């Protein structure tokens, strides 16, 4: 059975209080595609890491203007692609940012990208300093742990 192509987009303030909303929205969108409960939990964890990165890193307090996160969700025959996008400061060195344990905040683990890579079937990061960052993750049902 081929999954119907479906698309949804939500935009929300880049604040920690919206993390639960983002997780549930992504899992709800993916729920009809045959993912197991455990796989939906993996999607929630990956989304939580991506949105947390936007909240913590994309919008330094000194920046004025709207701090928003946009989450695009799109189905395909491969599964669901969830893109988390911000219009914040961007990442100058993406490879360095994806290094396990790399963080600019001493209170954090620096394991967000490592987790996202472990949880998603594939992950791509595009960023432009001063313009923002987009993290796109593909999840396919039935891939196992």
């Amino acid at each position, binding site marked *: 059975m081929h999954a119907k192509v479906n698309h949804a987009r939500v935009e929300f303030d880049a604040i*920690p*209080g919206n*993390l*639960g909303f983002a*997780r549930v929205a992504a899992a709800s969108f993916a729920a009809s595609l045959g993912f197991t409960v*455990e796989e939906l*939990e*993996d999607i*929630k*964890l990956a989304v*939580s*890491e991506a949105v*947390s990165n936007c*909240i*913590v890193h994309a919008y330094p307090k000194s920046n004025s203007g709207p701090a928003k996160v946009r989450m695009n969700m799109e189905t395909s025959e491969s599964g669901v692609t969830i893109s988390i996008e911000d219009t914040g400061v961007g990442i100058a060195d993406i490879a360095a940012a994806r290094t396990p344990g790399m963080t600019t905040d001493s*209170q*954090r*683990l620096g*394991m*967000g990208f490592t*987790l996202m890579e*472990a*949880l998603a079937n594939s992950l791509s990061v595009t960023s432009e300093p001063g313009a923002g960052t987009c993290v796109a993750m593909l999840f396919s049902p039935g891939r196992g*742990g």
Partner: protein
Amino acid sequence: MIRCTLYGKSLVLEVAGELDLNNAEEFRTALDSLIDSHPDVRQVVLCMDQVTFIDSSGIGVLFGRQRRMASRGGALSIASPGPQARRALDLLGVPSIMRVYDSREQALAAEAEVRKCTRK
């Protein structure tokens, strides 16, 4: 957010709900306050069966409290994580840094055994 029970020199903390960036600071402050108010405690067991979600922000708090307990010659251990918490803990390699037990009873029995061995 945290229910606290003292068993001898072990402090059992029961945490509930979701642990993420939204409450990591509150979680950290609450744990530090409980740890600081029990200076004789060497073992903190964190029961996670009521934790419905945890990500790296929540797990970062656990790492920090483990370091805190280690600095006083003690340890923090995890008991009864649900499936989501267990998955997140495993993915971040937590079991290689702190003990993770299937139940609170196992944690307390094992920690009592560890203390016995340490005293010999």
